[in-house]
């Protein structure tokens, strides 16, 4: 099987996974107790008005008919209208997705790069002070609930030291009274730092410790010893022989961490009032805004599936034993 066929197969699998996810989320929200329109319908409205509202959202139809319509609409990327905002879900999410990507992408990359890099270094310098201290720090943050870590960052760096904003993505005064493009970029970066650190820490420590363990085992392998015996420089032995093989389980963990970080993203975005998809998912779920919550799940599932496919393909590059055939 060539690259194209492999890619095609992975995309098909991804679409099937996505279909399963959206089906589960559809029925999951339907079995939740409560009337989704209770947040927008005033108890004093006449039955006719209530019926018209219910009809306009398609909630007067049977659940199977609703499901059929939902799948049909999904094919055209029509995610319906949000109950809460009374606007198309795509419109609401279009404003949120860039914010989430802005937070997720650097957090994932940083966690992976830093985790692999530091894990490699401390494994190479086994029994050194650096290894002890970084392992201890890694374990400490690995065990710490990261929402708590986020709150500590807010308290220390935003409140006590006043170095960063307490919440949000922008300084509302700066933006509303006019700011240059560069001021706006700096402002967003300024707001990004604390949530970024929180979300990065959520997976970085685990990756660093995993990389360390994997690397320590790899260093005992015969081919590494052989490389050393051949008199190759330490850096070459470490990076080209030991680390490359040790990275494979870390990359697997990275795939899993992407889906796990969705949960982390919801919490991080909520703590920092970061107006992303996770923040919207939380609000929509609590407010029983089915279309919006389903839309959030859809987008997050899509991001995860695409990321998994990309990393899957990258795997073949990292591990010469894997081929597309």
């Amino acid at each position, binding site marked *: 099987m060539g690259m194209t066929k492999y890619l095609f197969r992975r995309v098909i699998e991804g679409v099937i996974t996505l279909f399963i996810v959206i089906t589960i989320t559809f029925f999951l929200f339907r079995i939740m107790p409560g009337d989704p329109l209770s947040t927008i319908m005033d108890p004093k409205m006449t039955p006719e008005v209530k019926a018209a509202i219910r009809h306009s959202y398609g909630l007067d139809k049977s659940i199977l008919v609703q499901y059929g319509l939902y799948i049909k609409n999904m094919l055209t990327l029509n995610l319906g209208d949000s109950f809460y905002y*009374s606007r198309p879900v795509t419109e609401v999410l279009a404003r949120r997705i860039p914010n989430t990507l802005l937070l997720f992408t650097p957090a994932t990359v940083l966690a992976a790069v830093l985790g692999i890099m530091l894990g490699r270094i401390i494994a190479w310098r086994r029994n050194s002070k650096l290894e002890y201290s970084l392992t201890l720090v890694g374990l400490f943050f690995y065990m710490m609930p990261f929402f708590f870590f986020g709150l500590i960052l807010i308290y220390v760096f935003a409140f006590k030291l006043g170095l960063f904003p307490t919440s949000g993505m922008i300084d509302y005064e700066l933006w509303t009274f006019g700011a240059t493009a560069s001021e706006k970029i700096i*402002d967003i970066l300024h707001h990004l730092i604390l949530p970024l650190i929180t979300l990065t820490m959520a997976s970085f420590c685990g990756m660093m410790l995993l990389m360390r363990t994997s690397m320590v085992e790899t260093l005992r392998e015969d081919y590494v010893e052989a490389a050393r015996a051949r008199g190759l420089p330490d850096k070459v032995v470490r990076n080209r022989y030991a680390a490359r093989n040790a990275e494979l389980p870390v990359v697997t963990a990275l795939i899993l961490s992407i889906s796990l970080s969705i949960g982390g993203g919801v919490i991080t975005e909520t703590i920092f009032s970061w107006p992303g998809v996770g*923040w919207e998912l939380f609000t929509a779920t609590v407010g029983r805004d089915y279309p919006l919550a389903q839309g959030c799940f859809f987008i997050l599932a899509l991001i995860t599936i695409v990321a998994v496919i990309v990393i899957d393909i990258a795997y073949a590059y990292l591990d010469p034993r894997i081929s597309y055939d």
Partner: protein
Amino acid sequence: MSSKLLVLALATLFLMAGMVVSPSEGAKENYLRLSGGQDIKGINPFNPAFGDVYCALVKTNIWEYLYRYTPDFSENPEAKDSPDKRIFPWIAAEMPVYEKVGDKYEATVKLRDDVYWWDGKPLTADDVVFTGNLMLELRIPARYWPDWSITGEESYVESVQKVDDFTVKYVLKELVPLFQVGPMREYIYPKHQWDPIVQKAIDKFHKGPGEITEEERGLIGMEISSVDLGNDIKLDEIIGSGPFKPADWRKGEYMRLDANKDYWAKGRILNINGKDYKVGPYIDGILRKVYKSNDASVLAMKNGEVDITGISPTDIPDFQKFDTMKIENYTGNSLFYIGFNLRRKPMSYLPFRQAVAYLKNKELLNERVFHGRLPPIYSVVPFVNEYWLNPDLPTYGKGMNTVEREYKAYTILKEGGFGWTQEPEFKVVNGKAVELITKGEGLVMPDGKPCPEVKILGGPPEQIPDAAQANTMLQEWMRAVGIPATFTPIDFGTACDMLWPPDMSVPNYDINTIAGWSLGPDPGHIKDLWHSTQRPEITAGGANAEGYNDRGFDKLAEMSAREMDPVKRRAIIFKLQEMIAQDLPVYPTTTITRIQVYRIDRFEDWFNRPMYGISSYMNPFGYMIIKPK
């Protein structure tokens, strides 16, 4: 080497970002900065989804009423014939003049001739007639329809007619107080902005020359409510008459309202608590930022990012350290109660309800659990609404300690025909209970059957821990006298569906402590909540979850909706409160005290409106008179 460089680069970035001076420090001095707990979903006044307090804060600064309640709820001498004397003219020039013509009534409303829309056009009778006809013909905004119809079907307003440019005549089939506190206190919309939108929606959905059908009405309403203010109509194209104009809106982040420098009411005198204030606005505008958590808004207040926010009692010591801030409370016009499902036993027995009322030591709970935040009430009209409050109602155990209450509950149950497999035993000294020696068990109802488990619906501890603790205590007090009570934590939405089933089935609960109401100044809610026609299994959306069904009460409640004489109406309202306090379909428990902290170094003349506080949508006057320092 490369790793060291990366770490160095990250550390530098962190420090540099930290050194960026927060622009908040250079705040625009004359903008009042508010913290909001929720996003503003939308500001289309016809969209039923945008009826919450957050959206209302913006709407109330855009569109205005013919009449308003006085800022401090003092009586207006000109309103001597009004069913509520606290009302005064705003867009109207004087109080309405009523006249009986045949078997109908005519209410003539004179408008001020100096009220202008933001685009410079005068607000005239055409706008008022247009607004009235939206309700009569299309029943929009839907949430106000109950103000136009006592029965929910036909309106008591027959027509709204233009007499001249600044005079409007309402033809009424019957003269009811609701007219004055309802339709006269609803937003007036500019005809020249909304009429084309309305006509387009009618053309789209109304088939044929006949009258608009119910179904068409619903579709037309939905079409009009789908107009996106901010996009379909740009913010600077919205036409209002109020003191602040929406200027910038980043959904999920903030909204900015700019002061209407040509506000028609500028310079008008408002008398508040005996002092005269000239209407502004004096501030440049209002900036409202969304903070999803209370902790975030409290931190923002401390950091100087906002000028006012709500805090909890535990935050008070922190804020007392700031001499630039002031802490001020207000007690809201909110109603919380124990609601009994009268369709089920043992709740259908009056002695049972009385016993529970005695057992609920709300004074103790307010002091020990709620730290003074939920002051006790004894009427379904909270004490903050002094004008309508009947002060002579039974207080069910006020001043008694827990044992005395338990003994009283036991006595009431026993005298009411209840029995026990093991009767509670008390140590009584000089006729006064001093100790519960043995708890009661196996309560038997007057019909000889064992009392079933009584579930107390309440908010879950992870969401409202103090309320959950109060319900656990109530459960234990009830168990002490043998009532098999169980506190059942439940989320609010699910509880609402049990109390008011959307499918019009019979409400499915025993005792409700979770639902409460935020009330308007008029006590019309007594009829709306407990008239027998409002049982949810009879009327879709009916609020009478308790199933209270008393013909005498119904009759009196209907009289309260029709009595125009304020003195007589007050007497009826007093009697209704008495009937509820005696029949106990609900046992009123608390209202709510909110704590606000605000900056006194930046602004002065903060107005803390009774019942609604400083930055509520129910206090538009506050924004009109506050001044920068």
